[in-house]
């Protein structure tokens, strides 16, 4: 097991290097930095000096080498627009995305597994039909549209939730970290916590919709497959209560493939966060990336894309290892 984990982790190195190469090459082809930084009216001399300062007059392989070396030191460069260090911008923004993604995944796993299990146990019932129709809708809806529709109904029409943003700006609270939700919960400040929950509710639901649908479908088919197995018949035959059969025997095995889906959903949630954050003006890394791309702020684009890809790859690794650990039939050789 340990050997497997180490081997899988080592395999990450070339992939991550490849990711940096892609990000580097992509940004080489984007806007000319001298124009972005100096504006349209810069003289040729100024541009030359800046190119030298940024190391752009070196051969491309040297530039890439230097880029990787800087990355290894944790230096992501500076924003061309604000001159702020990219690492700092990301440090401030990323926790907001983490909280949004985590709340979404909790919602998706809870409701997805619940609906999936009930649908499977009551196969072909009205509940089953309706929830599978809902699941189909869930994966077919554009996430940004769902966000706008939720906003229209619950914020604009009914006024139950705030339209957008992270927190009610009239509330005063001295946050020590960027993990607002977690911090206010730990410090027991309930009015702040309530405001944060109200703000996160709609974006989290919008973001969670398609993952909930996928997890529900996966859980349903997985449970259906498992309850036809012999050992379930045995469990029933020996007189176990149906509840015990489902929760103790069936679910344990049925949830193994679901774990993989949940892991894969992290990637789509991070993708979805780009859109959800834009809709709800959520101050996370997704809206930062979109703004950076629109402003042709290459170092910021590089930093955000790199971070998301790295997180995605790492989560996939954890899922793979978890999967091998949960399913004893997998040989890790």
């Amino acid at each position, binding site marked *: 097991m340990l050997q497997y984990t180490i081997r899988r982790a080592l395999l990450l190195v070339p992939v991550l290097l490849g990711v940096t*190469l892609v990000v580097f090459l*992509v940004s080489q082809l984007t806007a000319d930095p001298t124009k972005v930084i100096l504006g349209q009216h810069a003289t040729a001399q100024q541009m030359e000096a800046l190119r030298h300062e940024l190391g752009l007059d070196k051969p491309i392989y040297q530039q890439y080498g230097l880029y990787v070396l800087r990355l290894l030191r944790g230096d992501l460069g500076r924003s061309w627009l604000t001159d702020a260090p990219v690492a700092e911008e990301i440090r401030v923004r990323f926790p907001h995305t983490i909280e949004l993604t985590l709340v979404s995944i909790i919602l998706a796993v809870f409701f997805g597994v619940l609906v999936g299990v009930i649908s499977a146990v009551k196969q072909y019932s009205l509940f089953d039909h309706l929830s599978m129709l809902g699941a189909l809708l869930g994966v077919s*809806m554009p996430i940004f*549209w769902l966000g706008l529709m939720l906003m229209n109904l619950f914020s604009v029409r009914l006024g139950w939730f705030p339209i957008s943003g992270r927190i009610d700006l009239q509330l005063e609270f001295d946050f020590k970290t960027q993990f607002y939700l977690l911090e206010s919960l730990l410090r027991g400040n309930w009015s702040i916590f309530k405001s944060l929950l109200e703000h996160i509710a709609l974006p989290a639901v919008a973001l969670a919709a398609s993952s909930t649908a996928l997890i529900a479908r996966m859980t349903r088919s997985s449970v259906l497959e498992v309850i036809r197995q012999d050992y379930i018949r045995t469990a029933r035959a020996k007189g176990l209560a149906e509840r015990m059969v489902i929760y103790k025997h069936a679910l344990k095995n049925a949830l193994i493939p679901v774990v993989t889906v949940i892991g894969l959903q992290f990637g789509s949630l991070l*993708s979805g966060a780009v859109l959800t954050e834009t809709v709800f003006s959520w101050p996370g890394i997704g809206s930062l*990336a979109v703004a950076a*791309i629109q402003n042709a702020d290459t170092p910021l684009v590089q930093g955000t*894309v790199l971070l*998301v*890809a790295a997180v995605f790859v790492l989560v996939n690794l954890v899922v793979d290892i978890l999967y091998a650990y949960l399913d004893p039939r997998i040989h890790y050789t």
Partner: protein
Amino acid sequence: MSIGTKTGPGANQLRDNGQTLSNELYTIFRRLRRHRPAILGGAVFVLLLLAALLAPWISPYPPNEPNYAAALKAPSPEHLLGADELGRDVLSRIIYGARVSLQVGLISVGIALTLGLLLGATAGYYGGRLDDLIMRIMDILLAFPGVLLAIAIMAVLGPGIRNAMIAIGIVSIPQYARIVRGSVLSLKENEYIEAARALGTSTGRLVGRHILPNILAPLIVRATLGTSEAILEAAALGFLGLGVQPPTAEWGAMLSGGRNYLYNAPHIATFPGVAITITVLAMNLFGDGLRDALDPRLKL
């Protein structure tokens, strides 16, 4: 004995393959016909395709012509789905938008399918270092969440419909390459492939005539579901302002334009989203049915 003549064993093999293929197609069609949701999905898709093709004749108004007197008008007999902030008819723009969405969906899947097939077949057939190289590149592409990579590629290529197709196409290559490689790897070991090779069949012919027909099923299913994903991704690019540029009607961009009028005129943002959902739902229903009809054991 030459392989090209009709009497050779190679020719028999081909004829047999051809017959089983048409038999199989018939069985598949019969199974698909009994799958009602799939038929519904397919029918809706055909209707959308027709609407897109006939757009100039069936849309009630020109899609890009402003009419300030009608600006922000709610749905009414004159404008069935209302008018947008410039008074343009929302229904007409949705019909024209179908052209863009379906084009991007189908062509980007075409790009991904072609390149994925070439790369996957090469990797699976030749194996060794070439396989390692190709699949590591695929791993790297898979390391990026789809929409984000598409956005980054659009940042390089610049906005526009052609670039959206390319970006979405590139992002989806690994899915096809993986399926093809896996199937080729397992097929390669079959005796009939070995026999064909022993008879001196060229590699291209071997892949085209003997291997490809056997991996069509999973590929077609993947492509159908891939089209619906591509349509969603195209709408996302349009929503972020990176897709088709105004004034061309595109569902994602229309939705984005309607954001500012949620309070006064929610219909502007609502209907393009309904159009996207219906299209994607239809493709998903059809794809699910097709998967069951082609091979109930397939899990994609």
